[in-house]
């Protein structure tokens, strides 16, 4: 449809409305014309018949044998009508515009015929005993003129009204679409950083879904931006703090006059470097995992867990923590050994760091339809709100003495995601601290 190509709603509405109104008006005009033509035909035919009857009645009484009379034109309309009165073959009376030959061959009744290029509607009547023949004719053109006038009267107002209607429609549509324009003005005037909701109250009901959708979008974008902003701020903090520490400690060492202080500052510098490189390692791991896909393969979870725990044990023993592993001799799962090793080490590292001195840390490997790895500790655990934030990059539990970067959990979650593993974090029923359960999807064949 042509109107569908119109980009403006206002244009569409005006075009549609005008098309519909014009169409209806034209249809009404056409119906009126057809009806008027029929009615007019019948009316004028009845006049012809009546005129003929009058002529017959008059002539029967007043036959004047010798005179051929020309009736005068009494009215301007008279040129459109003609009549003849014949007595046998003799033309007794006729109108000025009537020919001298009979208007019709018929003896009675209606006929439409062309005489000298002019169309006539003719009524013939026969005057009984005196052999009187009367013809009354009327030019068809006259009837058409009347019909044309009627049609004109129907169509002229339309052409006058259409522009007014267009103007009125334009105004009405403009008034009705005012909220839309106000919305677009509001959106245009918004600064890119303004992501608050648009006012929904007083909005037309048709616009509410649009506004709700927009507000939803704004909210999502705002959340995304906020997360991004927080990430940048946290990353800045995590990256700059060790560097700031290294710089200050190095300066302290340089400026120190006492050997003891200098040695301490240099040790601290090295510790800062270790921390910064650990952070860089983790960031690189995360970056690599960003696009990682798991190479198809299987690994023995029990053996892998044993190796990882062996590597972690010295750190745990240094904190007088007890580490144990409960595992079947073998538990083959679908995973990449290197990635799964990183996952286990990160979970173990977290348990050791946050379990506290003297804590018990228990690893459990369970085989079955859904193999799983559980890490539990007897540490302080986490509040539900803190659990929810685990895995947010750089999230650290406040008040923690540990210098973790909050990236370990992000790495664990990322590895779990690429392996399609589910991770549950909860409270350990057995040890009272944190319990983390890594579960594999159900094996395809039981």
């Amino acid at each position, binding site marked *: 449809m042509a109107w569908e190509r119109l980009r403006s709603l206002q244009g569409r509405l005006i075009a549609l409305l005008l098309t519909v109104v014009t169409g209806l008006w034209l249809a009404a005009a056409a119906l009126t014309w057809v009806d008027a033509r029929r009615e007019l035909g019948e009316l004028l035919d009845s006049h012809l018949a009546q005129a003929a009857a009058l002529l017959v009645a008059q002539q029967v009484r007043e036959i004047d044998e010798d005179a051929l009379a020309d009736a005068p034109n009494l009215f301007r309309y008279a040129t459109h009508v003609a009549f003849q009165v014949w007595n046998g073959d003799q033309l007794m009376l006729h109108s000025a515009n009537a020919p001298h030959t009979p208007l019709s061959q018929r003896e009675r009744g209606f006929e439409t015929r062309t005489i000298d290029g002019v169309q006539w509607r003719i009524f013939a009547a026969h005057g009984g005993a005196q052999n009187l023949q009367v013809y009354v004719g009327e030019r068809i053109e006259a009837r058409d003129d009347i019909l044309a006038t009627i049609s004109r009267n129907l169509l002229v107002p339309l052409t006058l009204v259409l522009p007014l209607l267009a103007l009125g429609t334009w105004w009405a549509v403009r008034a009705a679409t005012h909220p839309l324009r106000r919305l677009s003005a509001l959106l245009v005037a918004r600064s890119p950083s303004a992501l608050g909701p648009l006012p929904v109250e007083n909005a037309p009901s048709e616009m509410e879904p649009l506004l709700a959708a927009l507000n939803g979008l704004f909210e999502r974008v705002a959340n995304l931006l906020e997360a991004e*902003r927080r990430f*940048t*701020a946290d990353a*800045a*903090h*995590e*990256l*700059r*703090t*060790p*560097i*700031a*520490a*290294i*710089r*200050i*400690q190095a*300066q*302290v060492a340089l*400026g*120190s006059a006492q050997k003891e*202080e200098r040695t*301490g*500052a240099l040790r*601290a510098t090295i*510790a*800062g470097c270790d*921390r910064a490189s650990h952070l860089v390692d983790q960031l690189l791991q995360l970056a690599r995992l960003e696009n990682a896909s798991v190479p198809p393969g299987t690994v023995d979870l029990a053996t892998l867990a044993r190796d990882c725990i062996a590597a972690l044990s010295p750190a745990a023993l240094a904190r007088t923590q007890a580490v144990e592993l409960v595992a079947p001799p073998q538990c083959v799962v679908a995973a990449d050994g290197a990635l799964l090793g990183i996952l286990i080490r990160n979970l173990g590292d977290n348990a050791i760091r946050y379990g506290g001195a003297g804590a018990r840390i228990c690893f459990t490997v369970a085989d079955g339809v859904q193999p799983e790895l559980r890490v539990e500790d007897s540490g302080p655990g986490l509040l539900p709100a803190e659990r929810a934030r685990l895995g947010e990059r750089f999230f650290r539990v*406040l*008040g*923690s*003495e540990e*210098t973790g970067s909050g990236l370990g959990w992000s790495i664990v979650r990322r590895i779990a995601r690429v392996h399609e593993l589910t991770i549950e974090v909860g409270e350990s029923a057995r040890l009272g601290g944190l319990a983390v359960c890594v579960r594999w999807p159900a094996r395809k064949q039981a």
Partner: protein
Amino acid sequence: MRVLLAEDDPLLGDGLRSALRQQGFVVDWVRDGAAAEHEIATQAYEAVVLDLGLPMRDGMDVLRTVRAQENPIPVLVLTARDAVPDRILGLETGADDYVIKPVDMYELGARLRALVRRTHGKTSDTLQLRQLVLTPSTREVRLENQAVVLSTREFDLLHTLMLNAGRVLSREQLEQSLYSWGQEVESNTIEFHIHKLRRKLRPEMIVTVRGVGYTMPRDDGVP
């Protein structure tokens, strides 16, 4: 000059404390926001070095509380948050200076001294009282253009007295500005240092107000 350091990172905090001590500051170090708030409210510090990412209470909250209590103490915000809106927010909330990590330790010391100087209404680094000139950044003291050799404590004591020239400071106030927590202060330590200062300078420069404390009269002679 006694300052409070609020920094949760152990390595950085330790480094900052050593760095400031090397420059003659007396440093108390707290690791969380709640402790920082408590110390600022209860102790007399010349300035605060405040990290924003503190546990318990965010540094910005600490700053807000301090300013809400109409405490005019100079606060230097030391943070990794370098976004311009963060800096603006920090300064508008009441920070006197906003320094992005990492920072040079001498710059940090200079900024702290500048903050303290301004709160005492001084415009230049050097303090002068008649023929006595004290330069905090170089820790130099000159009397009639002759260098005077002072111990750390003596210098700090003189610095405090000169910063507050014309005001009488009690022995407790002087002790607080000279020692961080946990340091044993013997009852007559201040008297001892005052005595030595008088000998190295001129006895009349430091006036004892009996039962109240000590003061260094200003140029116009009004104590």
